[in-house]
């Protein structure tokens, strides 16, 4: 259960119906709130609310909140340091990576980067450069968190590869922005998604343009976890309130990504959870959108508490173009390399589940003819 007042912190700085407490919180409630804010990267929002005088605290609580923000922000700076090193290494071998999520959203979408902390580094890498990117990071000691099911899977079908360095910093190399069918659909549109840059230590770092970052926030909120997390919905809300993100552009981009229903779902969830202003044109427009049958079918495996990874896999199979690639994908998922089988419990579960599903489908199809 979420600690009381967390939603109020998540909505800080936005036009919200959540009101800060009228009085100083009791010690136990405060302690739970700070722990939750650390976990949900909301320390910047809490510190900002206190500094602006809109959140009553004792002197000790104020110090506590600022100490927590300093700790998470120190980590952010060390991650940015790591990011610059990683980008330089990738660039030296010809990998053109674009920064996603945390640092990019903090610098280009939030009014102040101190309001948005992050836990890892996410990079978008063109599919044909994935193998080189993975090898480069492994060359400096990083290890994959999950093995590649078969050689070439990252490059052709995977969402990406999660790499963990010896200092525990995680760098996620993304080929696309979601698992399953949406991963495939979005991947086709990503090459045409314009870039923008932000400055880190005097260096221009490439990312998606703000519209792309806003749409990615929506996609990640809905397709990345079920139900969407408060911190992800805060990203959606902050992006939708950014003065330089035009709704027409956002809707057009969502069409190109075939993710309009996903985006509208994210906007609806953000407005509900954060109790945002109902008059905002984004929510009015999102409420008018009715997902068609195909979109409802596509989205269903991602929604609800038990995300159906098997259905996501089958969804992606249906979206892959060409018989050869489909067979290669299915082979990689159902029959991963034998050397990779033992340590990959996660894959094992998925494979077993998929085999069961395929057998059931096959029985269903046979029945009418028998």
């Amino acid at each position, binding site marked *: 259960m979420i600690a009381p007042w967390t939603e109020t912190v998540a909505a800080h700085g936005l036009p919200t119906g959540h009101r800060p407490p009228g009085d100083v919180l009791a010690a136990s409630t405060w302690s739970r709130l700070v722990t939750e804010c650390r976990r949900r990267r909301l320390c910047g929002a809490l*510190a*900002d609310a*206190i*500094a602006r005088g809109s959140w009553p605290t004792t002197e000790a609580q104020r110090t506590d909140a*600022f100490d927590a*923000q*300093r700790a998470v*922000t*120190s980590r*952010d*700076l*060390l991650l*940015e*340091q790591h990011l*610059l*090193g990683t980008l330089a290494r990738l660039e030296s071998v010809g990998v053109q990576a674009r920064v996603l999520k945390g640092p990019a959203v903090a610098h280009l979408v939030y*009014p*102040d*980067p*101190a309001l948005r902390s992050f836990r890892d580094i996410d990079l978008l890498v063109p599919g044909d450069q994935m193998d080189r990117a993975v090898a480069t990071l492994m060359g400096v000691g990083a290890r994959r968190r999950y093995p590649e099911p078969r050689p070439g899977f990252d490059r052709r079908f995977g969402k990406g590869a999660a790499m963990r360095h010896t200092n525990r910093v995680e760098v996620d190399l993304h080929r696309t922005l979601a698992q399953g069918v949406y991963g495939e659909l979005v991947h086709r549109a990503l090459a045409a998604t314009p870039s923008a840059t932000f*400055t*880190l*230590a*005097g*260096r221009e770092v490439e990312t998606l343009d703000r519209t792309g970052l806003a749409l990615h926030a929506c996609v990640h909120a809905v397709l990345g976890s079920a139900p969407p997390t408060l911190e992800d919905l805060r990203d959606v809300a902050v992006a939708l309130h950014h003065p330089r993100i035009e709704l027409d552009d956002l809707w057009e981009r969502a069409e190109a990504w075939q993710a309009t229903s996903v985006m509208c779902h994210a906007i609806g969830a953000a407005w509900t959870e954060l109790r945002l202003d109902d008059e905002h044109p984004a929510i009015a427009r999102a409420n008018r959108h009715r997902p068609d049958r195909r979109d409802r079918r596509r989205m269903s495996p991602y929604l609800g508490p038990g995300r159906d990874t098997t259905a996501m896999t089958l969804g992606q199979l249906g979206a892959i173009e060409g018989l050869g690639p489909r067979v290669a994908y299915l082979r990689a998922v159902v029959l991963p390399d034998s050397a990779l089988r033992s340590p990959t419990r996660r894959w094992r579960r998925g494979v077993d589940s998929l085999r069961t599903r395929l057998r059931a489908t096959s029985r269903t199809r046979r029945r009418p003819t028998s």
Partner: protein
Amino acid sequence: MLWRRLHDGWLLVAADGFDDPVHLEGSASDVWELLAVPHTIGELTRSVVAQFGITDVAARGAVESCVAALSRHRLIEADPAGVVRDAEIAPPSSPR
């Protein structure tokens, strides 16, 4: 250099270093903000005297120890004429 402006000061770290970020608050934070443009130690001292109403000697001591700490972390650099400035990138001229 990488930085964040916090409500109680600044967090800074060299872009290519292995140090932990440095937290500047109080007069150290003011000295850092002055370094958005190059200053000599004397100019920094006079600014601190004017802002905090302390003696020249105390201000100079505070400025020198602050500048030494920032140099140690490679966050500022001094040219041969003794003019000090931030190492790579100026902080924003006005806080949020």
